[in-house]
C-alpha cells in the first residue's frame, strides 16, 4: 500500500514538473495605430461627424435619447469618448459580431459595419484625443 502511494506521488510530482516546464509568460503585442494615422488630419468637424451621422446618430439609435448616448453633437459624444466606451465598441470589438458598433442588427439602409477606412479614421481620431476642430 505504501509503495503504490509513493509511486503515484512520484507520478503526480512528475506531472507537475512536466506541466510547469511548459509554462511561460507571454503577452500579445499591443494594438498598433493604423499606418494611415501619420498622414490623416482628422477632427470631429473635419471627417468624423459625417461618419457618425450616417452610421450612428440616426432616428432609433444614438440621437434624441432613443438609446443611451446622443451622438448628433460633439458634446453628446464626449463622455463616452472619455470613458473609452466608444473606442471599445467600435474599434476593440470590431471583430466581435455580438458586441461591435454599428451592430449587425442596424435597420435596413444603415451600415451594419464601418469600412476599413472609416475605422482607421475613428481609431486615429480617438488616439489623437478626439479633437473637435
Amino acid at each position, binding site marked *: 500500500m505504501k509503495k503504490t*502511494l509513493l509511486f503515484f506521488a512520484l507520478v*503526480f510530482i512528475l506531472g507537475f514538473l512536466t506541466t510547469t516546464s511548459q509554462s511561460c*509568460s507571454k503577452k500579445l503585442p499591443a494594438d498598433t495605430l493604423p499606418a494611415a494615422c501619420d498622414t490623416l488630419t482628422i477632427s470631429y468637424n473635419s471627417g468624423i461627424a459625417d461618419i457618425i451621422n450616417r452610421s450612428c446618430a440616426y432616428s432609433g439609435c444614438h440621437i434624441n435619447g432613443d438609446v443611451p448616448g446622443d451622438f448628433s453633437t460633439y458634446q453628446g459624444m464626449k463622455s463616452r469618448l472619455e470613458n473609452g466606451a466608444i473606442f471599445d465598441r467600435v474599434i476593440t470589438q470590431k471583430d466581435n459580431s455580438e458586441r461591435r458598433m454599428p451592430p449587425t442588427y442596424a435597420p435596413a439602409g444603415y451600415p451594419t459595419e464601418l469600412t476599413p477606412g472609416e475605422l482607421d479614421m475613428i481609431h486615429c481620431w480617438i488616439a489623437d484625443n478626439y479633437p473637435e476642430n
Partner: protein
Amino acid sequence: MLGALQAQEYTSRTFKDRRVINTNSVETLAKKKLDIRITHRFGDIAGAAGGFQTFFGFENAADVLIGAEYGATDNFDIGIYRSKGAGSTADGKTGLRQLVNASAKYKLLRQRNDGGMPVSLALYGLLSTSTAKKTNNQSSISSFPDFTDRMAMTFQVIIARKFSDALSIQLTPSYTHRNLVTHDDENGVLSIGAAGRLQLTKVIGILADVTLPVSGQRTSPKGYHPSVGIGFDIDTGGHVFQINLTNSKGIVETDYIPYTTSDWSAGQFRIGFTISRLFNL
C-alpha cells in the same frame, strides 16, 4: 475485521461528488473506478443575451465538457476531458477554445473521525491545451506563435472539513497560469474559492460555490465578476446528477477563473447540469 474498523476512522463522503458546481471537491474516486462525465452550461437565462428569444438560454451551449476520470488508487485520480471553452476577456478578446484538459488530484490528508486530523486536503493540477486552428490575426490569443501558447494550467490546494452528515465546507486557494495573454492582461491569476454542501435528505443536497480572483486586473469595474454558483445534487446510487445555476460560462478552472465576465445582477447566469456514471474496471 480490523480493516473495517480502520475504514471508519476516516471521514467519508465529505462531498458526494468530485465537483461542487464548478469547484473541485476534496473527494477522489475509489481505486479502479472509472467515472464518465458530461457537464453542460447553457446560455444566459436573462439579460441582453437571454430571455424568451433564446428560450432562457436553452438555445445556446455556453460550454460542454465530456470525459472520464479514473481512480488509480483510493487517493489519486487522473482525468482527461474535452471542453469547448467559453472564456473571453472583458474587452472581448476570446480566450482558449477547443480544450483538451488533463487533470490529476492527489489526496494528501484525510480527516479523521477521532479529531486527529481536522481536515481533508487534496492537491489538484490541470493542464488545458487548445487544439484550435492557429489564426493569422496577431492580436488574437489563437495566433499561437509557439505550441506552448496553446496551454494554460491551474494548481489548487483543496482543504475541506465535514462538520456533520449535513454540512461540509471547503476552501480552495488556486493559481492559474495562462502562457499567452492579451497585452493588458497578466499571465498569472491567484484566486480563492469556497464551496459547501448542505444535505437536505439522504438523496438531495444543496451545493454552493464561489471563486474569487485575487487580482487588481479582475475587478467588477473592469468587467470581471466572481464565479458564484448554487445547485442541487441528487444521489441515485450509481449516478450523481447535479443541476445548478452559475454565472460562469466556462467549466474548467483555466477557463472560468480568469474569464468570468458574466454578472448575476444583469441576469447573466445560466442553468448547468452534470451527469456522471461510475463503472468498475
